[in-house]
């Protein structure tokens, strides 16, 4: 694979950051300080961080609702991210709210999210077309789940990406569930990577709990896209370690006690890899983690100080 020590460390750092960030968010949710619905990303950190780390700053990211590890890896400002969830003026949407949906930071290539599933596939294909037309070597990456992969938008986006060899990378995070509906009931055929062939895209299946493997697959896909050799579907198998949304009673699947989520916990696995490969000692890791914790706390403190928007905010920014 030829990944440097620094890269491996950077990937783990972002994963840990995302996971800890989510922990702090869950606390805010418990405290009733967060607007709307949150779809925890616990279990998806390996796929989201691994894939995004293969992007350049000026590459485009169209993310989805599952956690925030993808946008955290792309470098979203943490104060702004907290602000969006708190619905206050420090948010990237300046108090419009947003929560998990609609964090946006074009300067970092974070282009947004569609509240209706599937549509991001079209926009990402359009951004890839744009890069091709403008003759830059930018790449567009889009994350979506096994469920969103069955929306008709997928077909239209994948077809043009294949036909026109667009610089596009689709990351399908297959966690086996679309809310309560298992992938086996909802999906025909032999998986999402295999569907790539239908469009002349490359298809790769990867273990989403192995962040380094995801990185390697994504790096290859991104390089292919940058060379002008076309689009890729990466299917990452992951475990959705929490409910579909916070508050989901999850009556439709085995309980946490009956599952063995730890076996596929990407954060745990990656941490152990770092230790096993002697990239960092336990002490050094703990220091790194403490540092991240502190950064988060200070960001949250800062975010909390911002004002809530007034009613005027509603009418702001509808038109240029």
């Amino acid at each position, binding site marked *: 694979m030829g990944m440097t020590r620094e890269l491996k460390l950077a990937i783990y750092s972002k994963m840990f950051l995302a996971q800890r960030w989510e922990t702090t968010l869950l606390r805010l949710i418990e405290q009733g300080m967060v607007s709307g619905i949150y779809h925890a990303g616990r279990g998806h950190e390996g796929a989201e961080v691994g894939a995004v780390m293969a992007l350049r700053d000026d590459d485009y990211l169209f993310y989805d609702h599952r956690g925030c590890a993808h946008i955290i890896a792309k470098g979203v400002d943490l104060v702004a991210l907290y602000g969006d969830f708190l619905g206050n003026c420090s948010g990237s949407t300046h108090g419009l709210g947003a929560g998990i949906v609609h964090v946006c930071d074009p300067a970092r290539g974070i282009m947004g999210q569609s509240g209706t599933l599937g549509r991001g596939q079209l926009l990402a294909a359009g951004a890839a077309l744009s890069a091709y037309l403008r003759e830059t070597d930018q790449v567009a990456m889009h994350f979506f789940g096994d469920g969103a992969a069955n929306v008709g938008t997928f077909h239209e986006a994948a077809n043009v990406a294949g036909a026109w060899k667009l610089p596009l990378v689709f990351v399908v995070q297959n966690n086996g569930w679309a809310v309560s*509906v298992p992938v086996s009931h909802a999906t025909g055929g032999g998986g999402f990577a295999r569907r790539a062939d239908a469009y002349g895209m490359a298809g790769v299946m990867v273990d989403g709990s192995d962040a380094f493997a995801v990185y390697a697959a994504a790096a290859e896909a991104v390089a292919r896209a940058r060379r002008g050799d076309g689009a890729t579907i990466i299917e990452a198998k992951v475990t959705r370690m929490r409910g579909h949304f916070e508050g989901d009673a999850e009556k439709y699947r085995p309980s946490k006690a009956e599952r063995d989520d730890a076996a596929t916990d990407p954060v745990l696995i990656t941490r152990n890899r770092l230790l096993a490969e002697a990239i960092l000692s336990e002490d050094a890791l703990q220091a790194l983690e403490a540092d991240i914790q502190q950064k988060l706390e200070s960001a949250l403190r800062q975010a909390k100080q911002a004002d809530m928007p007034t009613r005027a905010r509603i009418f702001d920014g509808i038109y240029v």
Partner: protein
Amino acid sequence: MSRTITMGAALREALLEEMERDPRVFIMGEDVGAMGGVFGVTHGLQKRFGKKRVIDTPISEMFIVGGGVGAAITGLRPVVELQFADFLYNAADEVLAKMAKWRYMHGGNVTVPMVLRLPAGAMGGVGAEHSQCPEAMLLQAPGLHVVVPSTPRDAKGLLKSAIRNDNPVCFFEHKAMYQITGEVPDEEYTIPLGTADIKHEGRDVSIITWGRMAHIAMSVAEAAKKRDISVEVVDVRCLQPLDLETILRSVRKTGRVIISHEASKTGGAGAEIAALIAENALEALQGPIRRVCGPDAPIPQSQHLEKLWLPNSGDLLQAVEEAMR
């Protein structure tokens, strides 16, 4: 005799009774099966009727509606669900052209007996794409019926009628109303489509409304009483067929009109009702036709701003007082 139940339970009773009555009725949508729907309306129905009558679908809104039409023209009576009414946009051709017009376009040789359930409205800060009341777009699609109930009793009786109707029916359910309670008769009953209901009688001002705003209008009618203003609340219950007669009768009685819906004002279904009044009862009007509706802005994700976005009883009471000036 009657019981007090939630709107969600009333809807569930309607589904259950109609499925028992007619084996051709089946349910299809996202998470309607094991989960019983994200709002719980189909809870227990898959257990009761099996997986062939309560079908979980992939995230495929175009199939949910278009596949429903295919089933409806081949002998079944689907009750399909879009998880959020906003997703009408994701299956607009299927709703506005296939459901509404398949019969007409094919010379009346087929019927499309199906119901499309549409959980609508702002609640809980779920943002611009999961909070809308998009009923207005259906008015340009002759062939459809459009139902917008406001009470458990109405919801049950109208849903049963909708399922028995041989025309395609779009059925809105305001998400913030699933938990409201109300009296529902014990015995079997239906409510015919296209009949408005005077939810509060009055002489001075007519509020023409539907859905969740009907409740706000009723509370405003009470508040206005204390100010010696007698408000009539006309809950239209159906936008197509529209009970224009009842609306005009109320307008002619009071001479003052306020139309109120949650959807954004511009291009909302209230515009059509205002136009109909201005066309048919202008001479009865003592003042401008007022509209108290959602603002012309997308619905913010933030619960804080959502509350400020929603038209409320203060806005409506103010309009009542202005109308009386």
